[in-house]
């Protein structure tokens, strides 16, 4: 725990071309993930979470640029030449995306593809790589792994394919796993199984996991820490228990309230909502990006961007040291608070 974390992101900014010139879709994002830790990166469309994933992997499309630092095991992914970056990906740094079919080659058997992933990062004979591949497929609990070894991807269900992709991700013995909406395309009973598997693999390999998702419930189940993004900015970061029990940013609070809970329906037609819509990338308003939708906005929220203010640990909190809770909101700042100007007048 005292060594440098496997993944550390420092003031990452991603700039995308837009109709009105370059726009910053991710703005000054910093976080780190420790060994065996899972960080949930949560946001809605336009939050910048998927661009963050691509930047971490050094996979940004042409025309999109990143600044800042992404340190994986001490090396800056953004500064590496593409050749070395490629060896990084699938090696120390593995990834799982929403659509497993896109990560698999349709014309090769799955066993062969996992074996190739093994050989890409380790000097093994073909036979040894095949044995290793089978062991990996068994570890991700692909049913009938031995029999399915020669099956083509289309013979597998979505959940089985995602298991194969996870086996390929493990082939390079990664330290960091970036999972971008890994269960969003799956049915709920299959999602439950893949989330269980992710948790087991994290524990077994001590993986540092970044789980990128729009689904707060998925985060609650799988993550130790949560970073909430809105319009390209980190707006709140906290240990998961803390974030769900005592969300500090008005956006986090409203978002949590808007998630329907099984067994606790709101009065019919009365599900809490957030007025307005998320801003388009590059069209974030001045000041706090959430102020037009915020019920607690102050006059200065329209002018100034709040800093990420640290919140005091809860009274009696035993783990105060590591449990940093940050919120980008003046309600939690040092300054004396102004009288609420009310966000409603804008609507």
């Amino acid at each position, binding site marked *: 725990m005292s060594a440098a974390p496997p993944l550390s992101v420092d003031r990452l900014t991603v700039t995308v071309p837009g109709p009105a010139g370059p726009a910053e879709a991710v703005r000054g994002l910093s976080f780190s993930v420790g060994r065996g830790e899972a960080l949930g990166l949560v946001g*809605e*469309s336009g939050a910048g979470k998927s661009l963050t994933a691509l930047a971490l992997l050094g996979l940004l499309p042409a025309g999109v640029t990143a600044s800042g630092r992404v340190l994986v095991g001490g090396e800056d992914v953004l500064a590496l030449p593409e050749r070395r970056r490629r060896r990084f990906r699938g090696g120390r740094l593995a990834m799982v995306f929403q659509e497993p079919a896109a990560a698999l080659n349709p014309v090769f058997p799955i066993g062969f593809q996992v074996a190739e992933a093994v050989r890409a990062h380790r000097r093994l004979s073909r036979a040894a790589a095949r044995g290793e591949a089978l062991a990996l497929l068994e570890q991700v609990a692909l*049913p009938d792994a031995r029999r399915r070894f020669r099956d083509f991807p*289309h*013979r*597998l*269900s*979505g*959940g*089985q394919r995602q298991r194969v992709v996870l086996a390929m991700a493990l082939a390079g013995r990664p330290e960091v796993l970036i999972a971008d909406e890994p269960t969003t395309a799956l*049915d*709920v*009973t*299959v*999602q*439950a*199984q893949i*989330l*269980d598997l992710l948790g087991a693999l994290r524990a077994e390999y001590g993986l540092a996991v970044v789980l990128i998702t*729009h*689904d*707060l*419930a*998925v985060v*609650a*189940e799988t993550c130790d820490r949560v970073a909430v993004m809105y319009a390209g900015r980190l707006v709140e970061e906290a240990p*998961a*228990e803390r974030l*769900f*029990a005592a969300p500090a940013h008005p956006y986090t609070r*409203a*978002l*949590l309230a*808007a*998630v*329907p*809970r*099984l*067994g606790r*329906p*709101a009065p*019919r*037609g*009365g*599900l*809490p*909502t*957030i*007025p307005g*819509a*998320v801003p388009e990338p590059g069209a974030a308003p001045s000041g706090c990006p959430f102020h037009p*939708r915020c019920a607690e906005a102050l006059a200065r929220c329209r002018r100034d961007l709040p800093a990420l203010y640290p919140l005091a640990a809860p009274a009696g909190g035993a783990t105060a040291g590591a449990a940093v809770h940050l919120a980008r909101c003046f309600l939690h700042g040092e300054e004396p608070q102004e009288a609420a100007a009310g966000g409603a007048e804008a609507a």
Partner: protein
Amino acid sequence: MIGSGTSALGAAAGIAAAAAEPAGTAVEPAALGAVPLLEARGLVKRYRLGGGLLGALGRGGGRRSGTVRALDGVDLDLDRGECLAVVGESGSGKTTLGRCLLRLIEPSAGRVRFAGEDLLALPARELRQRRRRFQMVFQDPDGSLDPRFTVGRALAEPLAVHGLAARAARPARVEELLRLVGLPPSAAPRYPHELSGGQRQRVAIARALATGPDLLIADEPVSALDVSVRGQVLNLLARLQDELRLALLLIAHDLALVEQVAHRVMVMYLGRVVESAPAAELFGRPQHPYTAMLLASVPVPDPAVRRPRGAAAGEPASALEPPPGCPFHPRCPIARPRCSRETPPPAEVRPGHRAACFYPGQAPRAHGE
């Protein structure tokens, strides 16, 4: 805000006759002898797979051709003022069901009655005329909105097609429809790309309501929207349904969302209805082991609540080769030998609560909150 617009809408659209019944909030149960607005019996949809690409690519067994039973004998009743949710995973047939009920695709067998009339026997011409009484809202509003048409034109078009408003009266109706779905009149000259996803879905709903339908089928109407916007559209649907006394068939996979609005819920698995019950019953006392597994799989947005590990197992079989007996038995935690031989028929386990299981209510319960 919406009340005044509503009565005008009803009158203008010519649904006055339908709406003239006592405006009670209670749903007339079909059991009292009244005919439900929508009634389906033994609905079947088969797809034949030839030896072509689809047949060759089918996953599961080694069969190269065959018949897929996307719907395998579905019964359904839906009344005015009632919201029936159809839930299930991919391949359960819920989307096919919605389309078959409206004859957007032709069922292979079975019966559909709408307001007492046999929908499947109607000639195409008459079916087109009836279409204004049942409308559909899809997951992706962009699929139902032409990007070259302004919002105003998109809303005026169905009025013109069905002869529901004279040209001069249309702008006023368009404004009324916009207000009904919570959009300002200034939205009329806008193009779809100028609106947010939530606003586009509101326009799609307004367009569906333009003809004054009695029945609305909404297929995953909020799945494509941001979490913070889903509630707005869902609340709107619930409110419109109450105010216009619509029959609403909500097709959805998100159980927590369904619980917010549904009066009754039908759970489908591999083309069959495995359980149907009033919403509170179904969520509170699921009787079919598949329903119990579904509920236990839903992640809880609270780290303090631990979902039981291993509550869910397996994946649905291929519809090309459904297992013999109960379609769920290969994944069922309480399956017994009988389940792989015989198909359990839907049976009433409590009043209004049906389950197609030989051993209802015996599956382990969901989360212990």
